[in-house]
């Protein structure tokens, strides 16, 4: 029982981190162009910042 009290919050916490990471990625424009991102990794001189983030600065 006592190990559950520790393990469940850890499991939930890790899940929550994943959720927050996704929401951050969404907000920073990384989901704007999934096809493009797959191609851009092959560019030598690419600026890898997503556009929405740059716009917000």
């Amino acid at each position, binding site marked *: *029982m006592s190990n*559950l009290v520790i393990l*469940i919050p850890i*499991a*939930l916490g890790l*899940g*929550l981190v*994943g*959720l927050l990471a*996704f*929401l951050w990625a*969404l907000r920073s424009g990384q*989901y*704007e*162009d*999934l*096809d*493009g991102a797959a*191609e*851009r990794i*092959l*560019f030598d001189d690419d*600026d890898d910042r997503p*556009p929405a983030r*740059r716009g917000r600065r």
Partner: protein
Amino acid sequence: MSASVALGTAPPPADGPEVTVEPFVRSGGDGRSTLHLMVEGVHCGGCVRTIERALLADPAVEHARVNLSTRRLVVGWRGGPGLGGRIAATVERAGFRAVPYDPDQLRGADEVRDRQLLRALAVAGFAAGNVMLLSVAVWAGAFQDMGPATRSLMHWFSALIALPAIAYAGRPFFGSAFDALRHGRTNMDVPISLAVVLAGSMSLFETIRHGEHVYFDSAVMLLFFLLIGRYLDHRARGQARSAAERLVALERGFVTVLDAAGVRHAVPAADVAPGATVLAGAGERIGVDGAVIAGAGEVDTSLITGESVPERVAPGSRVFAGTLNLGAPLRIAASAAGDGTLLAEIVRLMEAAEQRRARFVVLADRIARAYAPAVHSLALITFLAWWLVLGAAWQVALLYAIAVLIITCPCALALAVPAVQVIASGRLFRSGVLLKSATALERLAEVDHVVLDKTGTLSLGRPTLAAVEAVPEDDLRLAAGLAGGSRHPLARALAAQVPDAPAAEGVAEVPGQGLRLGLPDGEIRLGSRAFAGPPGEAPEDDRLELWLARPGAAPRRLAFGDRLRDDAAPTLRRLEALGLEVEMLSGDRRPAAAAVAKALGIDHWSAGRSPADKVARLEALGAAGCKVLMVGDGLNDAPALAAAHVSISPSSAIDISQNTADAVFQGDRLMPVALTIEVARRARRLIRQNLALALAYNLITVPLAMAGLVTPLIAALSMSASSLLVVGNALRLQLRGQP
């Protein structure tokens, strides 16, 4: 018709309102500007790179980014909106057609909703995963003597995750359900919301009194699956939306009116009195309907008739508002202006046709209408039967009723249609077809009749050099080099024929006549018959022509014609093989239409049809019970596109046609039209299979739920299984035969 209305490819400079990108440039306060463009023909990383590099080579440009998924480009630069034209021209030179659009119109509601759905989906996914983790523990514990205290703890943790998640991720459904109820209707979202809310609150109640069964996992998983369906559906709808309607802009603007004393006045186009003399300069858009009094030359009528090859005009010829004067200045006696013009008439026709188009109810909605009440009654019957007839405690009866709601909740049904639609539209997108309307696929699948426009649809809609092989290589290169600097449609066609011809230095353009280049050993001329042709000979046919005159050689004739799309005939055969009646409706003259019909083997055709005739023909077909697919591009086709059961435009079409059409295909091939119908038919088959699967699943599980045999474990299993089955079936669309 023509690329000629597209940005930058428009023949003359300046006045044409559609040529200007400036209105679409958004200026920041700090001297920076941004322009949003839709770019056509981008299909790989290489294209992205080419465009971005070309733009970044311009020192003023600060950032340029192409979105490969949506084929849109955002460019930002230091400087005013005036640079917009240069930016657009750069993209064009890199080999891509670009159309500016207003991002606010696209963003607005659409993008906000997209984000909201995606966030809700993430939250529901997180909750579903974690609640399921706890639920699996409980289910395993049931076989391994888990104590009631531990089970309660698990339930409480589940509640902690599930309740906020339901409150957040359920909003898209709650809002719509509430709206429907308030207006006394019911939709698919009502049973969904009811099931989720009841399951959540009942489970909380059970958790508080340490009950055995809670449905938190079912509730969040339900939301998760439904949100996937909703998100896919939303994506399918939003994939291709055309640039803003800009037709109205043509009616604005000023025209030059000459008064009795010969003095020029700038008058708003709509205020010109009939009978007034209007002056249309070279390269200017004619603002009124009327007859030419003085001057002769060529007029680009592509916007009105779809005929890209310029029309020759002389005193007495009728001209229409919206056409473009390519040659010498014309004096025109106005006969109608503003609302009285043919242009305005076409717009009215189109609006009327759009209103008449019967509201098409998609299959899924038709099912939903019957489904929601059925589900409600089943749940109610279950509750009443267990409570009143079989004498169960009301809590137990309610729990069974909730199980019915959860089981019947249209997970598979909600995924059945959008999963297929998304895969089908993604498939078409890769083949260069953009679906604009969510219901287009379903309507395309029903089509039994195809009506095609001639110019710009069966043909490329732009002049191309005829009999290239008859022209010596040297002459061709010389002429193309001369033509490179001109924006006249024929010169552009010539330059496009020999793209690598070295551009000649020092070419002078004589408006309305041609180009001349002075060399030490004489003058080279490229232009009209009068300018560069042999003196005093009548033309041997009525094809458009340019003449090339060089010192010491006889003038050479370069004839132009509108070429048919290379795969027009095979496409028509394939359409016929699909069991479709093919018909051609042309606004063009009879001999021209007859020649095309003969070349392509079209039995049913008619020529000289006005926009109203075309609409009438489509309505006659519709009244006879035919489901007609209209393929057309010009403004003259726009009303017909709106009147047809479903419509497709080439991407070279004017904006208004693209806006009206349900789908737009890119490139010089016609085959995408046939492909679209094939994919639509396959999609329809898969959608029906999916719906049948979803209903079969319900037929099996609903009796179990009503009998009270469904535990949370069974509910979770059957829900996942049916959803996976439906999505897997949809994926088959992608597996089979890549055309």
